[in-house]
């Protein structure tokens, strides 16, 4: 029974949302990222799998390709169900994928040996269902599992870096998907590792992910706790860097890099993660989180890769040992904000001298260079997930490093070692000159232009975005009210004109009657005229004038 023209693989169960789409909404659905290899390993060999909530079709297709049996997708939006149905119809008609549309509490199909919810639990229930409550949702998902079934859930962390850096906090979120109370007010929601262990059991594998739960760029493994965060500060910084860059694009005003640095220094990567990927259930040991994984890292260029421990020490994907030390951009930034011009000069000169010894500088951008306590520079061979700029010469590579430093300092208003009257472009030249030999002007101009430092930085108002949005809504509301009153005013003016015509007619009639020379007859005619006259013409006129006055006063007040 369907009142919608939907693909045959779609089944409606009630509580669907007819026009809403989670896949198109302001809150992005779960996408493939660093969580994918963990998920696929956990699902390998499973034959009946449910994916609940909004997930991008590519992610669903990856799961469908990794399992042996049938895949069911539960979504609440009819447009999303239609899109998924049509996607899999077009995709060689994969008959193993079926779509169910409705609110989770109505889904009564049980016996799944794995249930996956990578979009947290908030969007499992529709507008027609109950308010999403974590504890209830967990129970609703568990009841669908076989006794040895596996549960894979991404749990949003309301204290994660994505929240700490967000300009619009949940309390101020007026976007369309935010019709429920903020997730943080749900007391059954896990707020930390202890809560996770309590709700999912001590055997559950927990992968803290950054920078967004919907799009993890890095998923930290249990082995990160065994990595010395001072000795291998450079490795941890390099593994964090793509997530930091990704979050900076989404939060252009936030100093994500500094925040991430503090999180790493404090050893609290799990606590401030954007989300936790939890793999739980009696069957979890079939595909556990390998204890040797330090992190899975998603890349723009290819499949995610892992950095692991070998004999207690981290090794790179190519099997080589990880060089100890600090990542060069952190060294430069620390020198600037100290402010320690001598330290900055030393770091710039050391990097420039080292670059000059290399036959190929392309693999040595600052974001991939580790500097140890002895001043030795070494490349951290993590592949193409670092800086987006590729330099061909040592001059170019140095200037890119300096430009990145200047942009960071200028964007976040750091204190600095160069004069404050310098433009960003002049600051690049000033810092680059610290290497002791002249920097070619043409290369300087090229790098400054390519990094956008030849233009003024985007102006920022001091007003929080949420406050600006509230003010806009206030103005729109008043404008709309004014338009409504103007419409009513025009209608009232038309009515008034009609009323005055009627009044004038009545007056003429009275004047005619006044000329009748018989008092008794005159009075009788007046009475008859009143009865025949338009109903209460004068009363209408008075009423319209009174309302007109009110409308005018209100309109003045609203405009004023």
């Amino acid at each position: 029974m369907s009142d919608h023209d939907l693909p045959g693989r779609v089944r409606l169960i009630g509580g669907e949302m007819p026009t809403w789409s989670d896949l198109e909404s302001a809150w992005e659905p779960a996408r493939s990222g660093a969580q994918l290899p963990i998920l696929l390993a956990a699902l390998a060999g499973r034959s009946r799998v449910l994916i609940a909530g909004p997930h991008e079709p590519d992610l669903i297709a990856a799961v469908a390709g990794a399992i042996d049996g049938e895949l069911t997708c539960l979504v609440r939006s009819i447009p999303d169900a239609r899109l998924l149905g049509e996607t899999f119809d077009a995709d060689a008609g994969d008959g193993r994928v079926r779509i169910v549309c409705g609110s989770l509490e109505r889904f009564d199909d049980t016996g799944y040996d794995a249930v996956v919810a990578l979009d947290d639990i908030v969007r499992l229930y529709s507008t027609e269902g109950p308010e999403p409550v974590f504890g209830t949702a967990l129970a609703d998902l568990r009841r669908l599992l076989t006794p040895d079934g596996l549960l894979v859930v991404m749990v949003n962390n309301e204290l994660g870096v994505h929240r700490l850096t967000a300009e619009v906090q949940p309390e101020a979120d007026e976007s369309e998907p935010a019709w429920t109370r903020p997730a943080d007010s749900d007391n059954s929601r896990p707020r930390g590792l202890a809560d996770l262990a309590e709700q999912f059991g001590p055997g559950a594998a927990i992968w803290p992910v950054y920078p967004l739960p919907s799009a993890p760029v890095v998923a930290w493994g249990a082995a990160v706790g065994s990595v010395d965060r001072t000795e291998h500060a450079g490795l941890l910084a390099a593994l964090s860097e793509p997530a930091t860059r990704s979050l900076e694009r989404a939060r252009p005003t936030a100093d994500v890099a500094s925040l991430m640095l503090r999180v790493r220094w404090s050893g609290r990567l799990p606590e401030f993660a954007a989300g936790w990927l939890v793999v739980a259930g009696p069957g979890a040991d079939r595909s556990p989180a390998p204890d040797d994984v330090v992190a899975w890292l998603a890349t723009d260029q290819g499949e995610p890769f892992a950095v692991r421990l070998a004999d207690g020490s981290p090794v790179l994907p190519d099997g080589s040992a990880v060089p100890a030390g600090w990542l060069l951009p952190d060294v430069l930034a620390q020198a600037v904000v100290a402010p320690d011009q001598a330290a900055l000069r030393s770091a710039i000169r050391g990097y420039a001298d080292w670059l000059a010894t290399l036959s190929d500088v392309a693999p040595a951008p600052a974001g991939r260079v580790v500097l140890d306590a002895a001043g030795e520079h070494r490349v951290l061979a993590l592949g193409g997930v670092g800086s987006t700029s590729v330099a061909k010469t040592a001059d170019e590579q140095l200037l890119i490093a300096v430009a990145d430093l200047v942009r960071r300092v200028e964007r976040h208003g750091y204190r600095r070692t160069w004069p404050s009257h310098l433009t960003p472009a002049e600051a690049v030249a000033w810092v680059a000159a610290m290497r002791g030999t002249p920097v070619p002007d043409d290369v300087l101009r090229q790098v400054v232009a390519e990094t956008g430092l030849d233009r003024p930085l985007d102006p920022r108002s001091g007003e929080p975005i949420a406050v600006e949005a509230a003010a806009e809504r206030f103005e729109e509301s008043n404008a709309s009210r004014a338009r409504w009153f103007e419409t009513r005013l025009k209608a009232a003016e038309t009515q008034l004109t009609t009323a005055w015509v009627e009044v004038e007619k009545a007056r003429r009639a009275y004047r005619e009657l006044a000329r009748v020379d018989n008092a008794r007859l005159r009075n009788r005619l007046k009475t008859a005229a009143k009865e025949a006259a338009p109903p209460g013409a004068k009363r209408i006129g008075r009423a319209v004038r009174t309302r007109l006055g009110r409308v005018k006063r209100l309109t003045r007040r609203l405009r004023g």
Partner: protein
Amino acid sequence: MDSSNHWYGHAHILAAYCGKDAARPPRINGVVQHGWNILHGFGPGHEPPAGFIKYVWSDVARRRGHLIGWRDYAVIGSPWAYLLAQETEQPKERSGTIFYPFHTWEQGSIEGDHGELIARIKEIEPGPVTVCLYWIEYDMPEVRSAYEDAGFRVICHGQRGTYWKGTDTRFLYKQLAELRRHKRVASNRLTTAIFYGASVGCEAGVYGPQMDFVEDRGGFDGKHYVQRLHPGLHGESIDPDLLAEVTRSELGLDQLLSPQELSYELGWSMA
């Protein structure tokens, strides 16, 4: 400010509850939901002006409206709930069934087989049957006589009015009196009247041939949607506990504001 506020005497009931002149209700600072529906609280094509408050019966209407970008909602409960708060006298005895055939409206029409519906009512309902027609069908001799000829008592609660004219301000009072004297309420669609009946203790049934709107309703016919949304509220005899729970939520029976707060919400505090 919106003439639909006066439909069924809603503004008058709210004014009476707030101690205002019920014969001449003050202007409401927004638009009041006028019937139970599965949309944002208002009918298809009825878009309340932005900047004014949308007064809805239950939170689910607010949620649906939020999705399409509508803001400034106030969940106040239904005027019916405020009527119940004022008219507390209970009936001494109840008998029979009052049946509300799915009806047309002022700007549309429906198609369906009244004869088939009459046969179903006779088959299901054990006691005397009152059929309540909407005023449009009540004024259609062929429809009205079909039910009268079947031996049913046929009534009409009145007109809801158009642009502040012709409103039977006692509409809901009459409906309340009728519902309280019947043991059962029934319809061939899940409609407002079923919830009204349930709110005053009627047993309920939703059965019979469902009639359809003739004109296009924005490409979406809610008939099947409602059946999936409330499958337990369809049948010759509906689970009273389930119906009571849904009724409480949909009519906002637990959402009633005090007269002082409601006056403030409706923009009457200074009136």
